[in-house]
């Protein structure tokens, strides 16, 4: 049974860590492309998940079609927020703290809108695959958890490739690092920022769709997801998807080990004390300069 406890704890640590990383991907993308600390990232996940649930359960749409529309809803929400609000803030040369306050406000507004439109219930999506259960080293492994792990890893490498190898990815980074310089070489800075928010919205929606078969998603879940996603992203270096995975795994596994070895009452105290120590001794994040530079 001890073997089962250890393996189950590690498995749940990895699964939770990758859930944090999935949310962290979107936070990293928006920070990288717009230099905005986006507190509403968890809400993108909630909206994506709830839209898919409504299309799947209430309208009876096929899962794949509902998932695509769920991702598009995240993209549309991201684009809307940039075009309607962020552009105005940029035009008025708003300081960095204004963006933080703005995203906090939008987060609360989206949460209230989800409560108003979709009610207070927790939404659950069916798992990807056949919903099989495997017993590995006396630990229960759900098939969906394996899908979540696999898709997270694929997303991590896809984002890494996008930013390092594609013209669009490099343009998005350049537009955020030096908007004036980027504009002089013909990059449409405004369009790149909109695309950054579109990417953040899509990543948030994908995270929501992958998380919802494991975690019931309701109007209250957005902020807790954001906080854990932020922790994962910052720990990894904030702009690098590989860093978000590393940060998420450290947090998830640390949480699981604290619960296993100590009392769950101390889970956050010990975990976040550990994170403080990591940030003191590794202020650039787990991946150091590579994390900040985007790997």
């Amino acid at each position, binding site marked *: *049974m*001890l073997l*089962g*406890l250890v393996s*189950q*704890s590690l498995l*749940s*640590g990895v*699964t*939770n860590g990758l*859930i944090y990383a999935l949310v962290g991907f979107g936070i990293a993308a928006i920070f990288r492309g717009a230099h905005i600390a986006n507190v509403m990232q968890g809400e993108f996940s909630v909206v994506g998940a709830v839209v898919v649930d409504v299309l799947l359960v209430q309208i009876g749409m096929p899962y794949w079609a509902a998932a695509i529309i769920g991702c598009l809803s995240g993209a549309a929400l991201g684009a809307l927020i940039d075009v309607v609000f962020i552009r105005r803030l940029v035009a008025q040369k708003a300081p960095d703290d204004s963006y933080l306050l703005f995203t906090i406000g939008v987060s609360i507004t989206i949460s*209230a809108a989800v*409560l108003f439109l979709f*009610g*207070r*219930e*927790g*939404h*659950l999506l069916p798992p990807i695959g056949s919903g099989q*259960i495997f017993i590995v080293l006396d*630990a*229960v492994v*759900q098939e969906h958890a394996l899908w979540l792990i696999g898709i997270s890893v694929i997303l991590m490498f896809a984002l890494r490739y996008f930013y390092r190898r594609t013209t669009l990815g490099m343009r998005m980074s350049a537009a955020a690092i030096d908007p004036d310089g980027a504009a002089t070489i013909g990059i449409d800075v405004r369009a790149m920022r909109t695309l950054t928010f579109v990417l953040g919205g899509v990543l948030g929606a994908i995270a929501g769709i992958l*998380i919802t078969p*494991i*975690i*019931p998603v*309701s*109007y*209250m*879940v957005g*902020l*807790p*997801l954001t906080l*854990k996603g932020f922790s994962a992203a910052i720990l990894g270096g904030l702009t690098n998807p590989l860093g978000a995975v590393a940060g998420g795994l450290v947090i998830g596994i640390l*949480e*699981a080990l604290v*619960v*296993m070895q100590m*009392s*769950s*009452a101390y*889970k*956050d105290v010990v975990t976040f004390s550990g994170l403080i120590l990591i940030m003191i001794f590794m202020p650039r994040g787990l991946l150091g300069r590579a994390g900040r530079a985007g790997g």
Partner: protein
Amino acid sequence: MRRIDRTRLVAAASGLALLGVVGPVAAQTNASDPIKIGVILPLTGAGAGLGIPSRNGILLAEKQINAAGGIKGRKIKVVIEDDTTNPDAALNKANNLIFGEKVVALVGPIQTANTVAVGGITAPVKFPQVALGGLGPAVELERKCVFHAAPPQNQNARAMLAYAKSLGVKNAAALYDSGYGTVVWNQLSKFAGEYGIKFGVTEKFEIAATDTTPQAAKIRASQPDAIFVIGVTGVPVRAIRQLQMKQPIIAAIGQATYEIVKSMGDAAEGVVFPEFLVPEDPLPHQKAFVDAYKAEYGRAPKSIESIAYDALKAMSQAIGKAGPEAGNEAICAAMRGPYSGNSTEYDFSAPDMTGIKLNGFIYSKLVGGHFNRLPFKNAE
């Protein structure tokens, strides 16, 4: 001369302040005006999941009271304020309702912290208030005009333990959240011995936790006879069942809502709750309420709605008994006594300001996503 003026000014201000304190009830003198009853609920924020169904129960009670002729021929009007799940906001709203709107009584809030905050201004002036949560910290025992329409946590804990005992549970585990769950857990640990139950692994999680699998894994390793789950989401129950644990789950009343059950998914099967209303199989006296609620809102009510409904009806009965112009102390005195509610039998003169007995609980078990009333009944 200047000194006299100042003295008069201070005296006048004091007089006005005094009027402010005694004024709220005296202000409603026009017999054709509706009788205003203030309601404070968490309609936004983390508590909205409790506040919104409570509002529905209260509005149904208001409608029924007015349809039946009101109180002594006068209609009632509930003035609903949102405390945003925040004690500071609850306090401000209570001040506005009592001294601005000049309501004759208050219903709400729900959360303990908010109720304690509002009680700080209602108790000194003996202003009648029925909170929708159970009795909180010891200070509330002294507040004899702050009544409670929900059971205190020691009764919730005993109701859960009594059912576990009936199953022959000896070794139990508990999974509880850091808010409501901790309060109930403190009572469970206090009374478990009386029921011959010993708690082994007990694990805590944050109220808004998105996953409790690590805690559930630890419980799984301890192989308890039953698991007590106390929280306000379906997350812990899912975690337990996802790890293929088959033990009985006894959950607290706070989770006995359709929304939380839906969020449990298939994991909800077999979970047992001590509570007050099973709409699928209501007690004979509860059927009219269930039917009226369904007709009004197109969905079934649960204990939360029923408790809020009872709170307004009990307060309205007390206002009728004392008379709407009788003053706050008289209405408060009229509240003290037995009241046959839709949810259960109350005795608001009891030391815990609610008087709900253990045999006033009913038990439900989830089968196929529906609540089924169990034959189990506590002997008080």
